[in-house]
């Protein structure tokens, strides 16, 4: 018993947010009088997949003590780019995907290099990047989005394998993969260490800059994957489909216990964080305030969760 207590005390597994998640689900079930079937819940999870994927990227950026405000526009960009390249022809899928993800790698590299080499605030750099991307896709499309995605591509968002939505399977697989990378690999450990203190990491002989840059590249590429999946949902090129994902991804990470100081947080926490946001937003849709409600909940959730995290940290000191 004692040892279990010890284990719970020192684990970094975010039990609290899972409890919160369960409470949310129960509340959802009660408020809809139990008419919600498991498949309905799976459908909600399906629609959560793009946010789930981009939130993992955001978590990684936060873990190295940064922040990526360009993930939303990156998703919008990927939607426009891949839809226009593929434009309904399954044969173009590889090219469309490669071009989209290639651009994401570039974006992440530029973010990371400017942040580390010029020691600039991550939020400013990524915010400026977000504007540049926005201008870029406006110029690319000349304001008129064009192109659509074939059925075979849309399978990643719309398809089902038996009772499981394909999108959820992809999301969970990526989650498992990244979780193992962060927890079990040398790279993951170094990432946490660098996030906790880049200075100490440098003193310990780590290539701290390289680790930070890689984190931004990961964040961008995951935003790219999320953008591809989002495009598969939407089916066509459409302006600004990713905008809301920037703040939602931060909110999801923060609910999951990721702190802004770096080095603190887990992907295991981000997962229920994403689900909580998505369930909350489908509640808002039921209430008929989906658009406004989204902003209200984003604002409230981020402020309250960060305040709570800060309070907890102060108490532990």
């Amino acid at each position, binding site marked *: 018993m004692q040892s279990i207590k010890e284990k719970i005390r020192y684990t970094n597994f975010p039990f609290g947010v899972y409890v919160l998640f369960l409470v949310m689900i129960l509340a959802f079930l009660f408020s809809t009088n139990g008419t919600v079937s498991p498949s309905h819940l799976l459908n909600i999870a399906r629609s959560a997949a793009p946010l789930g994927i981009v939130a993992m990227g955001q978590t990684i950026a936060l873990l190295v003590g940064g922040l990526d405000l360009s993930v939303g526009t990156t998703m919008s960009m990927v939607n426009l780019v891949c839809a226009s390249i593929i434009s309904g022809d399954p044969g173009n899928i590889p090219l469309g995907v490669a071009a989209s993800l290639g651009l994401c790698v570039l974006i992440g590299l530029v973010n990371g290099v400017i942040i580390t080499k010029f020691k600039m605030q991550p939020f400013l750099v990524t915010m400026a990047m977000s*504007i540049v991307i926005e201008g870029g896709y406006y110029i690319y499309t000349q*304001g008129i989005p064009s192109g659509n995605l074939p059925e075979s591509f849309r399978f990643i968002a719309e398809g089902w394998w038996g009772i499981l939505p394909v999108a959820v399977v992809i999301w969970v697989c990526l989650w498992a993969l990244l979780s193992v990378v962060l927890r079990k690999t040398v790279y993951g450990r170094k990432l946490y260490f660098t996030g906790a203190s880049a200075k100490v990491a440098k003193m310990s002989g780590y290539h701290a800059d390289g680790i930070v840059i890689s984190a931004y590249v990961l964040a961008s590429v995951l935003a790219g994957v999320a953008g591809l999946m989002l495009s598969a949902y939407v089916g066509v090129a459409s302006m600004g489909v990713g905008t809301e994902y920037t703040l939602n991804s931060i909110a999801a990470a923060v609910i999951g216990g990721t702190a802004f100081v770096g080095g603190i947080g887990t992907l295991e926490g981000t997962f229920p964080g994403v689900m909580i946001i998505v369930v909350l937003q489908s509640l808002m849709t039921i209430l008929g305030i989906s*658009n406004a409600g989204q902003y209200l909940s984003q604002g409230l959730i981020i402020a309250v969760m960060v305040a709570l995290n800060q309070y907890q940290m102060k108490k532990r000191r």
Partner: protein
Amino acid sequence: MTGSVKKQVKQAVPSMVVLIAMILIASLVSPTFRNAYNIRNIAAQAAVLAVVAVAQCKVLLIGGIDMSVSSIISFGTIMVAMFSQDTAGQVIFSILLAVGAGALTGLVNGIGVVKFGIPAMIITISTQAFLKGICLILMPSGGGSVNTGFSSFMRSRIGVLNVSIILAILIYVIVFAVLHYTRFGRNIYAIGNGEVYAEQSGIKTKKNIVLIYVLSGAIAGIAGVFLSVRISTGNPLVGDSYAMDSVAAAVVGGISMNGGVGSVIGAFFGAFILTLINNIMNNMGISPYYQYIAKGIILVASLMIFQIKRKEMK
């Protein structure tokens, strides 16, 4: 000018030089630019940005940032558009609502920063989102109308200048005097230089920080009123670009993101430079889409330039 005031004001010199150079070159090259109508248009456009930039500038001087100005501006336009239709009393009431909402948002920001230790960026992004939600509930899309008497007053000219730009200049004069010549202003610079040391010197840093965010919000509310006159309606999204633009204007004007360095005058020049860039690009027939890219690059580039310059000085 004596003491550190001189040095702070000096930070604005590069932006002034750039602005003058831009005006000279543009008026030599382009007859459309020289047009009096165009110049007044630029001034009116810049007035809104200049007012937001002065709000942003004070927060940057204490080493913070205020992203919530964008939603406060949108909220301001909505207040004026919803409540100012008929009488002068209504106009004043709507202005008070706009400014009051801004101040209240600022209060939440300030308390979040001081009491809860939330990073300024995060708390102001949160209040930005929250207030945007409220804007969208009040006015899901643009609408309403602005009192015609009020808007024609704001657009009327005294001498060569619009009332709106004169009011903007007046705000700058007041803020300049407060920042450089009062104890409150001195405290702001002290906090920006080193909060802990300021506290040790007997300055009530927490109170001052909250006050700065409140003032920043209130001034952003005024900017919202200005903007409502320009667009003649209320709009829940119209303020969105101003958060980023105001930071850019302040940074171009030589205000350090780390706090304690720079003068509001720089923000004034910065606001005009950004507005001019838009205007020139429009006149040259460059797609407005390029302006996004230009804005992003200008922000990062001027930050880099100042960063490198200041490092060399040390």
